[in-house]
């Protein structure tokens, strides 16, 4: 399998990553090598084998859906961490404004 720079660009867009031309080229080569290497998984017969999605065997771990308030200091720290804000509110660029 050969990944093209065009495919790499498409994946980067999906992943919200801005890549340079140089990176696009080198990821095309490296991803081709890595996906080529993992082809060896096809040697394993997995007919009828369940996937391993977790290893503890725990099922349906539930808790009460209750609101736990945090202290003022924590709230202040959370708001301070916002990259952009208006008062206590998180500010971002419009979601639907750009294409």
């Amino acid at each position, binding site marked *: 399998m050969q990944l093209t720079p065009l495919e790499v660009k498409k*994946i980067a867009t999906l992943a919200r990553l*801005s890549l340079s031309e140089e990176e696009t080229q080198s990821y095309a080569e490296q991803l081709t090598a890595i996906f080529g290497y993992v082809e060896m998984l096809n040697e394993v017969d997995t007919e009828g084998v369940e996937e391993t999605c977790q290893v503890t065997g725990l099922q349906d771990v539930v808790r009460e859906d209750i609101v736990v308030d945090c202290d003022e200091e924590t709230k202040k720290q959370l708001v301070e961490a916002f990259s952009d804000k208006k008062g206590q509110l998180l500010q971002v660029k419009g979601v639907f404004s750009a294409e």
Partner: protein
Amino acid sequence: MKQLHTLTIVEARKGLDAKEFTSVELTTACLNRIKERNGEINAFITVTEELALEEAKKADEIIARGEQQMLTGIPFGVKDAICTKGVRSTASAKILDNYVPSFDATVIARIRAQGAVLVGKQNCDAFGHGASNENSMYGPVRNPHDTTKVSGGSSGGSAAAVADGMCLFSIAEDTGGSIRQPAAFCGLAGLRPSYGRNSRYGIMPMASSLDTVGPIARTSEDIAILMEIMAGVDPLDATTVPVETPLYTDEVKSQMLNVKGLRVGIPKEYFELEGLDPEIRAALEQSMETLKAAGATLVDISLPHTKYAIPTYYIVVPSEDSSNLGRIDSIRYGAQTAHDDLYGAYANSRRDGFPNEVKRRIMIGTYALSAGYYDAYYRKAQKVRTKIRQDFDTVFGAQVDVILTPTTPTPAFGVGEKSNDPLAMYLADVFVSPSALAGLPSLSVPVGKTSSGLPIGAQLIGPMMGESVVLFLGHQLQNI
């Protein structure tokens, strides 16, 4: 007397309780070590000197009142991919350069509640992605045993810091070897606990179905002490398993367990690997002889899917990495790059704030999970993962009680030696990824050095929730 910064937790506890030295003196010894050596070793990204001395003073007051617990006054460090309240936690990526968590990870809260003294946050491969600590945006960590060599990774700073006497123990994270491999490279004990044994709340998630948090220290006995404090169910992490935490410290020292009659599995796939360093093989053979002489039975076993662990790992983990890293978007916290629109806020900040390996994994994962490829890659890998688990299930109980392997195929390699070859780097984890995929507890303990003075690690793998047997045997290997 030994120099303060070289003590084990057990030795430091005795000295503090006997008033031979104070926590302020012990902490100062570690801080001095950091001042002298961190410029070269680069184990710490953030040093919390003022906070540490304040906590040490408080610890001395607690000890004076006779109210101390096991870790009161003991200096420790924390991998920077673990959240610490009020102390910057970067995960070694510039995108979190300014991130100060408003909470402690559960395991850190438990350790600090004992009065342990936080001396700083440790360098690692960014977000835990790597096996050499060269994927840090704060520079590589150098191995204290030979500074031309890597410390191992991803928890390289955590291992190098203990090896160099900058703290007495570290708390780190192991997804596919990130505690054990650097512990082996730096001559220390490091435990990846069973998945579900320790709470991961506050650990920056990497691959959620594999991530664990565990300790690095000088001895298995110190590891046992730390596990007793860290382990146990946490309502903030629904994957923690509600089982009683064993009294590891008693088990390690007492006669509750016995080497005599213990069945130790020797998996041929690990020892037949092409590229296994002859000096490492010899050290492991010595360990086998030691165990045999102490009455253990060595059992030749086969784990036939071992060679598929690395390709499985490098589909499953980047896939989960790419999902988890979606939250690192520079919006609610983190460093944001100039942008014109929302897409630019994400894409530019992630471009500038992630190192190469993180981007590479996001790309691998996004591709493997994308429509049309999910079945061929992620689902296939999760099925092969089942085969790898079944290998272990087949031997545990029926044939063996514990498995002995080398931790790494080679001793610490040179800084820069593999950094341009991602596949070669991935193969450094060949012995540590299979048990990680199966969720099993695995301990690396030092079992000698190469002729050039580099540490060699042996890995003990136990059955699910079987920390007791690996800690016990690790202690025996370090003390027989």
